[in-house]
């Protein structure tokens, strides 16, 4: 998967490059709008990450140029969290946006969502190691034992299992499970994870829910 990053701030460009490369993507970097335009016209990309404020052609102009010829997914980054900016970006044909400062886990999650051409696996039964979740019967079992969960615990486990192997940030989890779209500055997510672990992981030797320090949580079979 090839990703083009158009970003003039060297540190941001550098860590986006490193982080995305480490996550298995091929990254091309443009430090200004004209280089970005050149690369877009010369090469094929699966996703473009666009900073709005770049020298030369700005992000909006670049977005218009892209949309004239292609429907490649575009994620734009902006430091100005003004409603007008967001609306403008989405109207010009961007697929998603992130406001700086953003967490890298959040960025990766958005990138994965945009690159996932087919809709997420809409299966109703999820299985990771010996843990099973049946969406239709609202049933969870591990190693053959039934585990009873509250509604929100079930929703949380469903989210983690359907995104197996992806690190999910606390903000993202809060917005998906409780529709809390703001940082509530509480440890609600940590407490919920701890309570879920107590039921799902603690009685068993293999721990599936992992904490990624500083990033969030991921559910996967430990290596």
């Amino acid at each position, binding site marked *: 998967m090839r990703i083009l990053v158009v970003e003039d701030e060297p540190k941001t460009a550098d860590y986006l490059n490193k982080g995305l490369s480490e996550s298995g993507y091929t990254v091309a970097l443009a430090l200004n709008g004209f280089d970005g335009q050149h690369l877009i016209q010369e090469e094929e990309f699966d996703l473009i990450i666009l900073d709005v404020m770049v020298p030369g052609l700005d992000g909006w102009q670049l977005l218009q140029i892209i949309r004239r010829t292609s429907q490649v997914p575009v994620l734009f980054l902006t430091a100005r969290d003004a409603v007008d900016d967001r609306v403008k970006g989405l109207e010009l044909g961007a697929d998603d946006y992130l406001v700086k400062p953003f967490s890298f886990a959040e960025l990766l999650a958005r990138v994965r969502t945009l690159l996932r051409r087919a809709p997420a696996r809409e299966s109703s039964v999820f299985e990771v190691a010996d843990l099973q979740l049946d969406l239709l019967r609202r049933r969870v079992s591990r190693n053959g034992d039934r585990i009873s969960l509250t509604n929100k615990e079930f929703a949380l486990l469903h989210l983690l299992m359907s995104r197996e192997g992806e690190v999910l940030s606390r903000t993202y989890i809060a917005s998906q499970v409780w529709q809390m779209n703001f940082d*509530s500055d509480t440890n609600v997510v940590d407490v919920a994870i701890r309570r879920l672990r107590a039921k799902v992981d603690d009685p068993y030797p293999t721990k599936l829910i992992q904490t990624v320090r500083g990033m969030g949580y991921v559910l996967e079979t430990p290596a």
Partner: protein
Amino acid sequence: MSLWPRSLSLRLALLFALVSTLVLGSIGFYLYQSLYREIAWRDDQALQGRLERMHALLDDSASIAALRERPQLYGNMLGNRQSLLWILDTDGQALIEINPAGLAIPTLPPAEHLRFARLDGQTPARLAWVQVRQGERSVTLIAGKLLAERNQMLAAYRLKLGMALAAGALLAFALGGLISQRGLRPVRHLAARAARIDAQHLYLRLDDRYPVSELHALSQALNQMLARLEDGFAQLSRFSEDLAHEMRTPLSNLMGQTQQTLRHPRTRDEYESLLVSNLEEYERLARMIDSMLFLARTEQPKASLNAESLPLSELVEQLSEYFEGVAEDRGLQLINQATHEVCADRDLLRRALANLIANALRYADDSSPILISSHDRDAGIEIRVHNQGPAIAAEHLPRLFERFYRCDPARAESGDCGGLGLAIVRSIMQLHGGRADVSSDAQGTCFTLWLPRR
């Protein structure tokens, strides 16, 4: 409108001049008309008298012929060169003619009784005539007066009137200007005083003991505005100071920890935990900036509000689920007794309530209930969040909703929104036209949100 002068005293002077021109003009016109009528009436009286005397003279004299021989009789009587006199026989032949201006004999309709007419032309004149019987024949007596002299006099009078009018208007303009200059002196004084007040001197006030009632009201209103400005300004500078202070703490943690770690080689784990600790501080800073931006945006007068009808019980239920785990950890019970519907922005009201509930969870006594209820109050709905816990001292209560205000300055918890949580609650309520209040006693602390009914 561009011709209208910008100076108020000039405007007033012009208005003075305009008004006095109108008044003086009307009076002058009236006087002129009276004079004109008076003169015309006197002239007519004189003409009539002359005709009567002529008639008497004719009756006394034996014949017109005798009269013609003694012209000085009536010549003296006429006395000046402005007068005209004809005595005509039935054929229109002049028997006697005194006509210094050399006018043609006027043709006049017959008149049994005295008649007047005005003769227009090169030499305008006023004529009076009557037919009288003289013996067995009838003659027409015509007396007249040339109008030249009278017109000349009236013209001179008009000129004088006009000049007096112009002089009056000029005088009114000058005096009006002087008076308004004097009258507006307190305004200039007020302006000079107001000009001295800038950001550094916001404590200065305008003299509000003006003897002029209009200015008194004005200076009072300005003083009230200044008081509000001073208040806002003080709050703003305190806020900037607080902000700098709040950012300094995480920054000094970051710098100190990083420098301390870099002094010696460390293990991989130590580096990793440094980075994680740094990340926590970064997140704290990011959250603070987010909250600041949120506050700045909701405090804009034109901030947009997506108001809809919201059932409170559902909203509180959602929040109770969200905080369920945290509450249970401390044995706290969230009790939802909210029943009303309110008209509000869903996300904003949820955020306000979430902040209040998080606050209640933080300060509630262990194993106590937290009660969320709704009530009808003052043409609106009041939402109460009550928790049992130590009372908040009365002096803190009014300032609790200020940004960065903490009852205990030394206690800054990383979890409490950097002291902005309650400020956000208040500005959300203000945006909705409502208010946020708090009361506290030994029974516990109760935060109330009041929303007007739409």
